[in-house]
């Protein structure tokens, strides 16, 4: 029962000829459709597509200050996406990042506010604590799956909502994380105290020059390490094998509960780290709204990047640009929710083409008699997108 076919890596499967070209063409067409559809929506609702594009540009990459905002938003997105790459590759689909981000931030805040050690050490420990918290939270889903056969997707989703309530609770309790009242007669707010400057992640550059947070540097380093490990290491190979064909992986000696559970825990750890980075690199104060859809959007980044860490970097930058640009949209009368629509359409534009190309080539393979030379057979795996 534990052998479940999930999320084979399409990119790794043998492909019919012309597949790559076809995917590229359909993807370009789909992106065009997504962009045109969004612009039509803007003009149909009385806005000006030109103004909207201009605002998005101004807010995201027009000057160094805008770039700083974009990089700031891209950092947690990239971290979450890296984690999602790991779990998607292993065929254990984690969709609870939103809660794992928040929980990671909360535990990081607790450590940062309660440990009396030198600042830098506290900072490192709080980042670690955030990652461990996220990892344990998603690891619990792995235990439920391999121990009690509970569906991973559903349990990570439900656990995510639990995490949000746990953190909402923690910031209303003074002995956990709630900030002390400013004065005796003021009302205590539902947030933590501010992190002292000594435990924050240092960065490079200062407004108006380009700001590069330490979190960004960390996430780029992790991207490279992860890309190398996934492509070159035994661990990466086992992970891919587990995702591609769990049955073959088991026969090859991959222990699914261990490898899959570890992948799930790692993906949660990356999400937790993202939360810790948001906290001690950008926000400095734990609020229940801190995760701000970074978990959901990071997962979308990984989907567009087809679970490749290096590809996640430009996608995270793009989504970061959407986030920073969207704050400038309001002045044009176009609601900033436009970027959510564009993002969703973009995911579709990247997720549909590989599958569509497969379906088309499958139809062709069935219609024409097989040539004498054996061609790569049409994969019989269920087509999945999380490659």
């Amino acid at each position, binding site marked *: 029962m534990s052998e*479940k*076919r999930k*999320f084979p890596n399409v990119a790794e499967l043998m492909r019919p000829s012309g597949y790559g070209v076809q995917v590229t063409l359909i993807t370009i067409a789909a992106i065009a459709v997504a962009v045109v559809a969004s612009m039509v*929506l803007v003009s149909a*609702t*009385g*806005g000006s597509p030109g103004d909207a594009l201009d605002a998005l540009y101004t807010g995201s990459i027009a000057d160094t200050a805008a770039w700083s905002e974009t990089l700031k938003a891209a950092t947690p997105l990239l971290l979450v996406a890296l984690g999602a790459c790991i779990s998607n590759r292993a065929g254990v*689909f984690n*969709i609870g990042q939103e809660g794992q981000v928040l929980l990671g931030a909360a535990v990081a805040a607790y450590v940062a506010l309660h440990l009396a050690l030198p600042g830098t050490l506290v900072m490192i420990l709080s980042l670690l604590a955030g990652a461990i918290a996220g990892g344990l939270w998603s690891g619990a889903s792995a235990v*439920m799956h391999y121990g*009690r*056969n*509970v*569906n991973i*997707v*559903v*349990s990570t*989703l*439900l*656990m995510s*909502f*639990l995490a949000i*309530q*746990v953190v*909402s*609770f923690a910031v*209303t309790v003074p002995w956990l994380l709630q900030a002390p009242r400013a004065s005796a007669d003021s009302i205590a707010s539902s947030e933590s105290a501010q992190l002292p400057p000594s435990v924050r992640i240092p960065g490079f550059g200062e407004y108006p020059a380009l700001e590069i947070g330490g979190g960004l540097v960390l996430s780029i380093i992790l991207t490279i390490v992860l890309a190398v490990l996934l492509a070159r290491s035994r661990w990466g190979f086992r992970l891919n094998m587990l995702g591609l064909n769990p049955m073959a992986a088991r026969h090859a000696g991959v222990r699914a509960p261990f490898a899959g559970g570890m992948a799930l825990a790692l993906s949660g750890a990356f999400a937790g780290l993202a939360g810790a980075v948001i906290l001690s690199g950008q926000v400095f104060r734990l609020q229940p709204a801190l995760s701000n859809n970074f978990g*959901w959007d990071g*997962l*979308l980044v990984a*989907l567009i990047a087809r679970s490749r860490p290096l590809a996640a970097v430009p996608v995270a930058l793009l989504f970061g640009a959407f986030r920073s640009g969207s704050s400038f949209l309001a002045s044009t*009368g176009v*609601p900033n*929710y*436009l*970027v*959510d*629509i564009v*993002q*969703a*359409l973009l*995911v*579709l534009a990247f*997720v*549909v083409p590989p*599958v*569509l190309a497969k*379906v088309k080539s499958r139809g062709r393979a069935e219609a024409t008699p097989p040539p004498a030379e054996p061609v790569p057979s049409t994969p*019989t*795996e*269920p*087509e*999945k*997108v*999380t490659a």
Partner: protein
Amino acid sequence: MIGTDEITTIVASSLRLTAPLAFAACGEYLAERAGTQNISVEGMMLGGAFGSVAVASATGSATTGLLAGAIVGLVVGFVHGNLSHRIQINTFVVGLVLNAFVLGLTSFLIAISEFDSNQVAQLSIPGLRDIPIIGPLFEQRWPMYLLLLIIPLTWWLVERSRWGLNLRAIADNPQAADVTGLKVNKLRRQALLYAGLLSGLGGAYLATAEVGSFNMNMTAGRGFIVIAAVIFGAWRLKGTMIGCLVFGFADALRLALPALGFELNSQLLVAAPYLMALLAMMLFASKSREPRALGKPFVRGIT
């Protein structure tokens, strides 16, 4: 202390909070019995809520709005069905994207539109409605009584109709069902249409029957609670409906307790449905009634 008045109030608010869940849960229950698992219920409900308010405002008729909401849900179900059970994109990815899309689109549209408030009429039975505690049963917006029709219909469809037998077959062993000539993916798309219709109706009920207007992200995770209810009910209709009642009651308590002067942790009550669903999954997993091919895509040729 709590008197009958307070209990009556809590019963009334439980019913109101349960109804949207119950509509959508009937749909999702049928879809899961066909082997599909759809986190897009959230998007269907949200789209239904928005569609109903928009159309009700345009036509001035809340009933038309209710219908329109159901149709919006149907459209989301249609898209989901074709993406995940025709070209075989992972159903959770499709759900994720659809939820994000519907949330973005409805938030975008509500930010630039103004709608009149429309609410369907209340059905109130004199005499019966004054009975303490169970009185609220007889004083509700009329679409709630549609549940009296839809719940038995859903049961009949799944347990007694030929279509339902086919759905259950493709949920437990799609390969065998395929060999006997059933069109697995087509049946799953049909099941998703039913789920979309009822989830849309659930969202529309929330918007045009209870609230009378649309707010950004007004379903606020109710779609996920619906999925939790189906799991909590161990994939049986009776259990699913009990799950909806329990979750609706927890929600009602969350709203009512502070007014009654109780200091109860509201986060715990919000978390209760998720916690209970997780526990239910862990406890019932070994002797599970979970459809065996639940959430797995069907492609001819794999075992």
